[in-house]
């Protein structure tokens, strides 16, 4: 227990790093994922092809491999990122975007075809009908899957410990090595830190879902 209590400041800084890494990566993932979903449902074959290729490649690559490429592969292509944290945000965000794309696309498919037809009938373009009619309805139905993706992203941020991002898992590894008698307590502390994030996210998601659920 003392290993946790004596090092609360370290746990706190790790917690903040996890939160900032997760939030920034999530912003990237949700923005890019929605765009990719729009690509995949668009009537323009090159865009649809790109969307499908992106999802199939990224979804089937382990995050660790992708992260390794972001950190060590990009410099070989003469692309240097400002910091290892930025590399982490990119890796995590680009990876999760594939999953967000699929979740949003399933939401788009669940909106009845009549909506898209009606939007076309009143003269909206493809992008306008997506933005004004379909997506608002789609997002309301995919709150649970997107919540899943968010929680998975928070836990995936732990891979940052292997790539120079000092988040919760890195802090736990450091403390476990310096407190060999309290290894279990140290990792329990890390688990609690993650639970604080994921449980509160779960509660927030419940509230959001109740507010936006589509009553059939």
């Amino acid at each position: 227990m003392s290993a946790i209590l004596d090092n609360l400041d370290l746990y706190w800084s790790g917690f903040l790093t996890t939160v900032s890494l997760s939030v920034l990566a999530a912003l990237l993932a949700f923005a890019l994922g929605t765009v990719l979903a729009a690509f995949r449902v668009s009537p323009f074959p090159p865009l649809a092809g790109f969307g499908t290729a992106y999802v199939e490649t990224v979804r089937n690559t382990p995050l660790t491999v992708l992260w390794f490429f972001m950190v060590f592969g990009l410099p070989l292509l003469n692309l240097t990122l400002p910091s290892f944290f930025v590399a982490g945000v990119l890796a995590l965000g680009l990876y999760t975007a594939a999953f967000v794309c699929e979740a949003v696309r399933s939401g788009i498919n669940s909106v009845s075809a009549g909506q898209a037809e009606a939007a076309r009938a009143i003269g909206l373009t493809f992008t306008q009908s997506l933005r004004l009619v379909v997506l608002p309805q789609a997002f309301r139905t995919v709150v649970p899957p997107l919540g899943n993706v968010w929680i998975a992203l928070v836990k995936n941020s732990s891979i940052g410990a292997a790539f120079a991002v000092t988040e919760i898992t890195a802090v736990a590894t450091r403390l476990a090595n310096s407190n060999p008698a309290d290894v279990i307590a140290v990792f329990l502390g890390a688990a609690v830190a993650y639970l604080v994030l994921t449980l509160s996210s779960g509660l927030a998601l419940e509230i959001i879902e109740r507010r936006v659920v589509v009553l059939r």
Partner: protein
Amino acid sequence: MTRRPLSRILAVTSAAALALAMAACSSDAGDAEDSAGTTAEPTEETDDAAAAEFPEGSTMAGLVEDGSVTVGTKFDQPGFGLLNPTTNEPEGFDVEIAKIIVDELGLSAEDIEWVETVSANREPFIQEGRVDFVVATYTINDTRKEVIDFAGPYYQAGQDIMVAAGNPLGITGPDDLAGTTTCSVEGSTPAENIRTNYPDAELTLFDVYSKCAEALKNGQVDSVTTDNVILLGIIAQDPESFELVDNPFTEEPYGIGVQKGDDDFRSFINDVLEASYEDGRWAEAWDATAGQFAETPEPPAVDRY
């Protein structure tokens, strides 16, 4: 969903679960049978003779009776404990030291079961009894002595700095690290040392040294710092890209980890180490492994505390 598809799904799921459980059980049973079979007849007589040398109930007698020893070592440290993918066995100085100890028990190298112990696992594995002893570039320090005991030291390493070939920043020692980025492994003693004593150096921490080497090659960090033998192992694999500053600034005595309180076993290992210093086996082990890329040092005096 109608009744029949649901019960079919349940049947398939429980069959799969049962198959998994049986596979798990059978693999354990298979291992137990195998080891019992190989140690059964031919070595029984020599086992009894060897066990007779050791006090009743001591770890050594127990190991001889089992006929096998589980040793924890590193699988990713060139020169000390590096897994050979073709033979699937680790090779290196730590491995050779372990073999010398097992030899003195009256067993052979084939009786050793090698388990990878990464830095964070060394104490838990010893405490749980998952391994009989650990030889894994294991620095002796007082915090670790609270939970396990150390035999040895069998080698004296020192923290050093590795830079890109040509030493562009002209780093000659740890004080020159101020204002530069240096790389090490999260949770390691060298990293802790830099953080405490040289706080002006910016630390970048990965989980393995190979990533630090990669970052140094790409220019993402200015140097890598850890024990000199680990650095020499990295340099040996890529001598064109790196060079060693060669100014060790700490003393890292490498020891052999055993369970806390097992004084008999610790004395036995210390006896074996001292004997190997005398009769040249220690020097032979070094020359065959880390000696390929580092000079042969003097063996350090064991610490019988």
